[in-house]
């Protein structure tokens, strides 16, 4: 950057925009400050009327976002500084439902603080700018006079020096005041860190729920596709091989063996596919709910299982799928590791909580750190904000309790 460019930049458009920013800040600040002070004063002075303070506060809360929007556009227009908007609060026709959250929100008081600070800050800025620019002009005038009228060149030099100093300082003053104003504006008019975090948590929660629902829907879709397509084809294939095996008895022995082998393989493939598909999402769960799906699981377990299900209102498909998965995993674990002779499953829905408990009389010592099964269980339960408790002292018995939220 050449010196000439530097000089041009120093007194360039940006400087004038900053100066304008301070000037408009004084105007808008005076306006908002006056309104706020007037409303507060009215409600304090007329507090005994009750109606006036309520109306004044309502008006105040109503005008605050307008002033904030005005200020935000001022920052954008002059300085190209974008202050992120605050989360909007929906207007409620019920005055208390609208006023109380407003009054409790930190952002309301932060905005108020800015609108009161703005006239002071920009007032000071305006005075400072007036002094520097006005001073520059005055010094030029004075030094010209000093050289011209009374021959006192040292005084003229002094005035000229001060004038140059003021002329140099003016853009810096504008810059300094806008800098402070930007800091104040960003801190008080933008969303607070906690608000931002809260908003982000909300978004994340929503998107997580969507992801989980999508995964569950995907599981059901895969199950349906396999059921409607692959399984039917395999049945057809096995049926045809069965027919061939039964009717083509006059074929040479090797050919018959090949057919027999293919027939057996196709049946095995069907069985494997069936187990896989059932693990994805059993159709009976969709049709008849947890009770039916869990009794199917209980019946399949290689040990007696007592099952009691008290669920009058069905939970969402996702929650049901998680509950089914929990019991399925728990029973698989018991079969694999627990050496149990029996198990008890209880499922109860109370309000918006679904409580599951799986107990076995096995040898205990189950810990999530030791196996992927229990960890997977904890993850799946955690994915829907459920709670998992495992009580498994060495020597048994083991109890797995799960609580799932359902709307």
């Amino acid at each position, binding site marked *: 950057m050449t010196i000439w460019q530097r000089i041009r930049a120093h007194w360039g458009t940006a400087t004038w925009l900053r100066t304008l920013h301070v000037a408009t800040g004084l105007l808008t600040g005076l306006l908002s400050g006056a309104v706020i002070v007037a409303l507060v004063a009215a409600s304090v002075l007329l507090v005994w009327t009750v109606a006036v303070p309520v109306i004044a506060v309502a008006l105040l809360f109503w005008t605050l976002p307008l002033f904030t929007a005005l200020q935000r556009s001022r920052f954008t227009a002059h300085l190209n500084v974008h202050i992120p908007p605050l989360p909007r609060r929906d207007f409620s026709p019920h005055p208390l439902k609208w006023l109380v959250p407003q009054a409790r929100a930190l952002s309301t008081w932060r905005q108020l603080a800015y609108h009161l600070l703005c006239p002071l800050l920009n007032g000071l800025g305006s005075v400072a700018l007036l002094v520097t620019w006005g001073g520059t002009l005055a010094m030029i005038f004075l030094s010209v006079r000093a050289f011209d009228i009374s021959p006192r060149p040292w005084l003229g030099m002094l005035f000229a020096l001060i004038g140059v100093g003021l002329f140099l300082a003016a853009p810096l003053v504008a810059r300094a005041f806008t800098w402070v104003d930007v800091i104040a504006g960003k801190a008080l008019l933008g969303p607070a860190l906690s608000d931002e975090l809260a908003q982000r948590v909300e978004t994340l929660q929503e998107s997580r729920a969507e992801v989980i629902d999508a995964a569950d829907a995907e599981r059901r879709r895969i199950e349906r596709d396999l059921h409607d397509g692959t399984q039917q084809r395999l049945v*057809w294939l096995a049926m045809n091989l069965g027919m061939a095996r039964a009717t083509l008895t006059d074929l040479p022995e090797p050919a018959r063996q090949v057919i027999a082998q293919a027939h057996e393989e196709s049946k095995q493939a069907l069985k494997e596919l069936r187990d896989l598909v059932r693990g994805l999402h059993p159709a009976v769960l969709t049709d008849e709910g947890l009770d039916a799906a869990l009794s199917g699981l209980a019946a399949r377990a290689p040990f007696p299982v007592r099952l009691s299900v008290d669920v009058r209102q069905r939970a969402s498909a996702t929650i049901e799928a998680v509950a089914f998965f929990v019991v399925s995993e728990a029973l698989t674990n018991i079969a694999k590791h627990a050496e149990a002779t029996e198990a008890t499953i209880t499922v109860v829905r109370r309000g918006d909580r679904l409580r599951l408990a799986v107990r076995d009389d096995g040898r205990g010592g189950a810990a999530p750190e030791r196996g992927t099964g229990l960890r997977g269980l904890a993850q799946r339960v955690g994915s829907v904000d459920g709670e998992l408790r495992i009580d498994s002292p060495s020597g048994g018995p083991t109890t797995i309790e799960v609580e799932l939220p359902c709307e």
Partner: protein
Amino acid sequence: MRVVLAEDSVLLREGLTWVLGSAGMEVVAAVGDAEELLRAVGEHQPDLVVTDVRMPPSHRDEGLRAALVLRRQRPGLPIVVLSQYVEERYASQLLSTETTGVGYLLKDRVADVAEFVEALRRVAAGGTALDPEVVAQLLLRRRSDPLDQLTRREHEVLALIAEGRSNGAIAEALVVSEGAVGKHINNIFAKLGLSGADDKDHRRVLAVLRFLKV
């Protein structure tokens, strides 16, 4: 024998029609959903109905619901329900109507054509055909009750009775004499407290009912 067949997969419907046809059965109607099934049964008065559980429009348990409706409308109409998965709940619902002339089989069983056709004939003749998987599930489930007194062999025999087999078929399956099967059955009746009943077939059904707890 006149059969009405309900199966939504065209491929399987054709295949089953062919299998049944080659076994000497006449498929008078092959339909693709539960409503058509009800209509076809009303129209053709078949000797046997074979239906899939899952069918359009919602691809849930329409076939089973239709079977239950048919059982109520026409008591004694033999029905075989085919299912991709064996679910105890579907089996109990089906058996809760009547245990004669009912079949609940895994779809895979179609692969063993001869056995499948034999099961269909049994049901058409008023017998039962329960999939070994259903029986196995129920057997596991009911281990902690009077049935505990049964020996392993007696369990096997009772399971085969529940599947709907005759004494001859049971003897063949277990590779024992028919007399031995008869002895086992008498022991089972005794242990289940069914020795007093005088009608043999009735006792068989009672034993199965006790076994299935339906």
